[in-house]
């Protein structure tokens, strides 16, 4: 079932072919129980992954694949990780990426692929002061 309209698919395909540089991995964690939108979330991101050869899709089961859960420090499901080919940047999305959040996921894919944050020089230099683990949690709604 296609969730994206033909127009959106075509747009994203073009966008990815122009903007993606390095390969990107989308790692998805589902669970069978108590996961409100695991199925829908998987449908959306597999569709996104199918739009570029540079995006690969990997799926794990939160309850069975304990090693992967530990490796990626996944806390709940559905979980989406946007990672580089060989690097986990610490990017997690928990829940269904609908509405505006869908755009954030697309931006994250492009930024990871280009290894950039599109940040100002000032921000980049200040952030160098962060040398110990620092966690940022952003709460959103799918609007």
């Amino acid at each position, binding site marked *: 079932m296609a969730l994206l309209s033909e127009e959106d698919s075509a747009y994203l395909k073009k966008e990815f072919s122009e903007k993606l540089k390095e390969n990107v991995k989308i790692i998805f964690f589902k669970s069978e129980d108590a996961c*409100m*939108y695991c199925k829908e979330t998987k449908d959306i991101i597999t569709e996104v992954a199918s739009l570029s050869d540079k995006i690969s899709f990997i799926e794990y089961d939160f309850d069975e694949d304990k090693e992967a859960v530990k490796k990626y420090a996944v*806390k*709940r499901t559905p979980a989406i990780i*946007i990672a580089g080919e060989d690097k986990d*940047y*610490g*990017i*997690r*999305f*928990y*829940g*269904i*990426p609908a509405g505006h*959040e869908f755009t*954030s996921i697309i*931006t*994250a894919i492009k*930024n*990871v692929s280009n*290894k*950039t*944050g*599109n*940040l*100002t020089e*000032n*921000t*980049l230099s*200040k*952030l*160098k*002061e*962060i*040398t*110990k*683990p*620092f*966690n*940022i*949690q*952003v*709460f*959103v*709604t*799918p609007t």
Partner: protein
Amino acid sequence: MAYSFAIVNDNITAEVIETQEFINLSEKYKIYSVPKTIMNDNGEVVGAVPESIFLNKAMESYNS
């Protein structure tokens, strides 16, 4: 913006959480409006703010 911070600094992890699916967390962090950002459990930003303000809040939280 949180994701951008995570990309450029390996010590930073950025989690975006869909509030309605994880009510327990929303209650824990008293999420009454979105977006709301919790930094290292000791700082918060309410609303979508410019990069410079997000950065200042992050540094403030990191250094406290």
